[in-house]
């Protein structure tokens, strides 16, 4: 047994390049439950990070009583991380769950029944449609639903109501990933695979604290690092993360300067001739613009702008330029910072320059926040059209109209679907009066919370919230619908490397809670949405019907699911799309042939100007004649829009941390995870703490132009001049205020962040604000920041204070079995042919 709070990544199982990652099955059962007590194991996959690990749910007496990893799954080879072990089931199977619909009566939410709740929704919805039309309706959905639920929601919104105002909280986490791939390769869809970790010589982690955000994937990297021929690691992150601690080169750039660094790396490849001219000539276009744009970015100018050592930049470029196989991964450090799309496209550009795409060990992983988020992008309940279709291509819109048997004019396609920040702006201005939020918590996760609270509370708004718990956001609702969670419904979802898993229902949802699918089907029926032939728009009986319809929607598209069935997903491993007649076992790596999805008839977008977000449009795009070539996209570097000044001298950055997921609605309800990180903190460097007379645990007020937070200080390994706060903490568990808003102490990092977004991906800039710090009290003890990861106390410097290590104790013991079975092979025979 291993304390998996203290040992986040578990026991090492080293392996060499081109070997397969050994199997280790992780398991945890509720206190007092033995394996022999488990009545049945139900197949699923974990949704608590983008990894999407294969998992079995232990069931006893109608309850979830534990989980174990699936040894044969190509994603995790049996392993689970702390969130999967302790929050996947505990965070759902919980006494706080909503069990009945709530409706607002005289300003107070009271228990009700489904008929009353749905009647109120439908009545308001119909009145608004009659009086103001579909643009009065907005849907802010999630990265948490299953594929089938997104597809149903997409059709309800786009072909039932006909509103362009649909987006998901995926906008906050994966929008830039999708956009970067669309701009460079013509379509969303991850080129690489997790198998590339087994096969690479070097790894670049761009703004990606994989050690905390995807613990099982990091365990795979650690096992390579402890093996005989470890990959060379380069880390771009302002904090001393565990990734940075294992890196040969750590580029602790100033928040907001990513693109300058990327320009410098690209320039070094050109300068040193570390490019594959044949690949560039045959498979890419627009290289000259790239060369011109990066020209000013010498090593010295990068060093000055980014606050890093020029020699480190040179070494990083050399590692990229001279390693045979390079794997790059990208996450929020790039996606939620300034010039997000341009910086992320620059990662694609590095690979295109060297032809490192579609070959073993040469992956690009533009990451997600969770596996289910990928499906929102595919299904189009966010700002996309279903099946990676192009809203500017009338034939694509007609294909959807034919599939759904509706008139194509009802499907909004006159401009890109409205992004989340703009939806909230329309609510603020009063033109959206009906907002349906499912499974997300903008009252904690959106930027500039004081503003968001005002918007959610506005009197002109009818707010529907569908969730597992009475979240900070649900407390503003007019109607709250209790949702079934993971393990309480059946459906599929797809992780970062396109692997589709089936998650079977293990137990019944509590009380009257229903799956999101059932709720959308009910709404569609009550609204009377029909097809052209007069039959109901959605006549599905259950998730498998939806999945079969979805397969038709993907036929011939990059995300082709036509070769997948529920039965095919049962028993074994997940399967990576595209999976069809040509690729019956799925596809491990896209673009093996160097032919990209940029053909004008096929592509998901005609692209954008990366500086302004201006659409390029069909005529210009067709005139470029991309003909299956990847496109070098770039933009000139611009300083972040809010930079430190005399009044607000620090750069503030936020991030996700190992023990929590999003706004803690699930993880705070797992005792093991909550004990490991029960409260917010702020991180400062040794030098900054000393110059401000601060030591570990001192209480500070951090203030931006928009708000403030109060929290104890952790003196950590963050770079000088930067302040970090974890993203997760809100107010529902703060005592007497009712939990919608802060009562006494502001602690949500987003009190401080700015309302701003990337011009192309529209992802908010959550990692870049100017703040000041003021001590308000001596600490009574240490901060409650974990000591196991990037928030660990700095190892040097004055004013140090002893800090107790983060451990889990008996409750956090999990069983690890080094399974004497062969690891699952790369998914497809095709890969070996």
């Amino acid at each position, binding site marked *: 047994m291993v304390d998996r709070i203290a040992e986040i990544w578990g026991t090492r199982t080293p392996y060499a390049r081109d070997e397969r990652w050994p199997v280790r099955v992780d398991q945890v059962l509720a206190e007092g439950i033995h394996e022999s007590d488990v009545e049945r194991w139900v197949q699923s996959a974990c949704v608590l990070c983008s990894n999407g690990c294969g998992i079995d749910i232990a069931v006893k007496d109608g309850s979830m009583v534990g989980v174990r990893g699936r040894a044969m799954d190509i994603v995790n080879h049996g392993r689970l991380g702390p969130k999967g072990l302790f929050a996947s089931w505990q965070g759902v199977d919980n006494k706080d769950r909503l069990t009945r619909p709530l409706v607002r009566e005289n300003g107070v939410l009271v228990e009700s029944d489904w008929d009353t709740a749905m009647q109120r929704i439908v009545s308001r919805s119909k009145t608004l449609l009659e009086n*103001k*039309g579909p*643009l*009065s309706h907005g849907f802010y959905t999630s990265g948490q639903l299953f594929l089938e639920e997104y597809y149903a929601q997409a059709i309800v919104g786009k072909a039932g109501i006909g509103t*362009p105002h649909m987006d998901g909280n995926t906008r906050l986490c994966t929008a830039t990933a999708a956009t970067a791939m669309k701009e460079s390769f013509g379509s969303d869809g991850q080129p690489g695979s997790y198998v590339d970790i087994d096969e690479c010589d070097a790894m670049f982690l761009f703004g990606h604290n994989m050690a905390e955000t995807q613990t099982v994937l990091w365990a795979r990297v650690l096992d390579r690092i402890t093996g005989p021929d470890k990959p060379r690691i380069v880390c771009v992150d302002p904090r001393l993360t565990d990734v940075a601690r294992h890196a040969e080169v750590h580029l602790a750039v100033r928040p907001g300067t990513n693109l300058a660094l990327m320009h410098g790396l690209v320039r070094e490849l050109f300068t040193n001739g570390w490019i594959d001219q044949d690949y560039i000539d045959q498979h890419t276009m627009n290289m000259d613009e790239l060369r011109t744009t990066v020209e000013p970015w010498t090593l010295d100018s990068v060093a000055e702008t980014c606050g890093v050592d020029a020699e480190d930049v040179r070494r990083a470029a050399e590692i990229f330029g001279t390693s045979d196989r390079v794997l790059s991964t990208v996450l929020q450090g790039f996606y939620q910072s300034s010039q997000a799309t341009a910086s992320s496209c620059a990662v694609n550009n590095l690979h295109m320059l060297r032809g490192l795409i579609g070959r073993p060990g040469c992956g690009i992983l533009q990451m997600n926040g969770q596996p289910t988020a990928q499906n929102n992008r595919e299904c189009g309940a966010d700002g996309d059209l279903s099946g990676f279709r192009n809203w500017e291509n009338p034939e694509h819109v007609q294909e959807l109209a034919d599939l759904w048997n509706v008139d194509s004019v009802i499907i909004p396609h*006159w*401009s*890109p679907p*409205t992004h989340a*920040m*703009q939806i909230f*702006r*329309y609510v603020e*201005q*009063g*033109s*959206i009066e009906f907002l349906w939020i499912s499974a997300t918590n903008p009252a904690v996760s959106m930027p500039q919370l004081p503003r968001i609270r005002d918007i959610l509370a506005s009197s002109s708004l009818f707010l529907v919230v569908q969730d597992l718990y009475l979240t900070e956001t649900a407390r503003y609702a007019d109607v709250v619908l209790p949702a079934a969670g993971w393990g309480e419904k059946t459906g599929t979802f797809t992780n970062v490397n396109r692997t589709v898993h089936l998650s079977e229902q293990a137990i019944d949802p509590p009380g009257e809670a229903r799956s999101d699918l059932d709720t959308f089907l009910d709404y569609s029926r009550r609204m009377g949405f029909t097809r052209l032939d007069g039959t109901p728009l959605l006549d599905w009986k259950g998730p498998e019907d939806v999945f079969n319809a979805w397969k038709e929607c993907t036929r011939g598209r990059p995300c082709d699911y036509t070769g997948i069935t529920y039965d095919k997903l049962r028993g074994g491993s997940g399967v990576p799309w595209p999976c069809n007649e040509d690729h019956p076992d799925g596809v491990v790596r896209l673009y093996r042939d160097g032919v990209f999805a940029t053909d004008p008839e096929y592509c998901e977008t005609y692209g954008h*100007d990366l*500086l*302004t*977000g*201006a*659409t*390029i*449009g069909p005529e210009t795009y067709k005139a470029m004649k991309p003909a299956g070539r990847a496109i070098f996209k770039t933009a000139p570097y*611009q300083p972040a*829009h809010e930079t430190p000044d005399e009044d607000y001298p620090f750069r503030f950055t936020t991030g996700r941390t190992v023990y929590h997921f999003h706004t803690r609605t699930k993880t705070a309800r797992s005792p093991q995870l909550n004990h490991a990180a029960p409260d917010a903190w702020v991180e400062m460097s040794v030098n900054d703490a000393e110059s401000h007379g601060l030591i570990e645990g001192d209480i500070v007020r951090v203030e931006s132009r928009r708000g403030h937070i109060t929290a104890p200080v952790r003196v950590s390994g963050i770079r000088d001049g930067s302040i970090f706060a974890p993203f997760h903490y809100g107010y529902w568990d703060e005592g007497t205020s009712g939990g919608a808003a802060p009562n006494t102490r502001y602690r949500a990092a987003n009190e401080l962040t*700015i*309302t*701003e*977004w990337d*011009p192309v991906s529209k992802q908010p800039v959550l990692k870049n604000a100017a703040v000041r710090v003021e001590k308000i009290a001596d600490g009574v003890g240490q901060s409650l920041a974990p000591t196991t990861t990037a928030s660990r106390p700095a190892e040097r410097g004055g004013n140090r204070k002893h800090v107790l290590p983060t451990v889990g104790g008996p409750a956090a013991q999990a069983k690890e079995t080094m399974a004497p079975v062969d690891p699952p092979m790369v998914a497809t025979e095709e890969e070996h042919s």
Partner: protein
Amino acid sequence: MRLPVYLGLLHKSEATLARSFRQVSEGHGHEPDVYFICQALAAQCDGHQQALAPVIERYGEVDKDDEPERLHADGLSEIRSGPVGLLRDLQDLYLLASLVDITWTMIKQAAQGLRDKDLLDVVTNCDGQTKTQLKWLQTRMKQAAPQALIVAE
């Protein structure tokens, strides 16, 4: 040679456009994308005027022409408010940017006739940005128009 007349027209138009971008930026600060992008585009217009400086030094610049001004393009007098106001202000910027764009085109014609490679380079770089400014304005207006014209108060 009447090229200096058009150089003067362009110089003045870029200055007007820069001022107007800044005006719209400040006036619609609650639309963060409009705020930040208009600032960036105003800076581009400043850059265009700088790029024109050596050209003007060579050919001169005529402020007043003997052709009378028929269409006045003095920039925005004041900022409107609300969703339709935003649309109208962006549309005014579009007209100003169109004037700049077509003026660059005329100068490009002259540069080709003069076989002035330096001037052609200036035109290519600057007018490319002006065309993108137009595309951004069109993208943003197309996004805003349905909501402003159908449901906004």
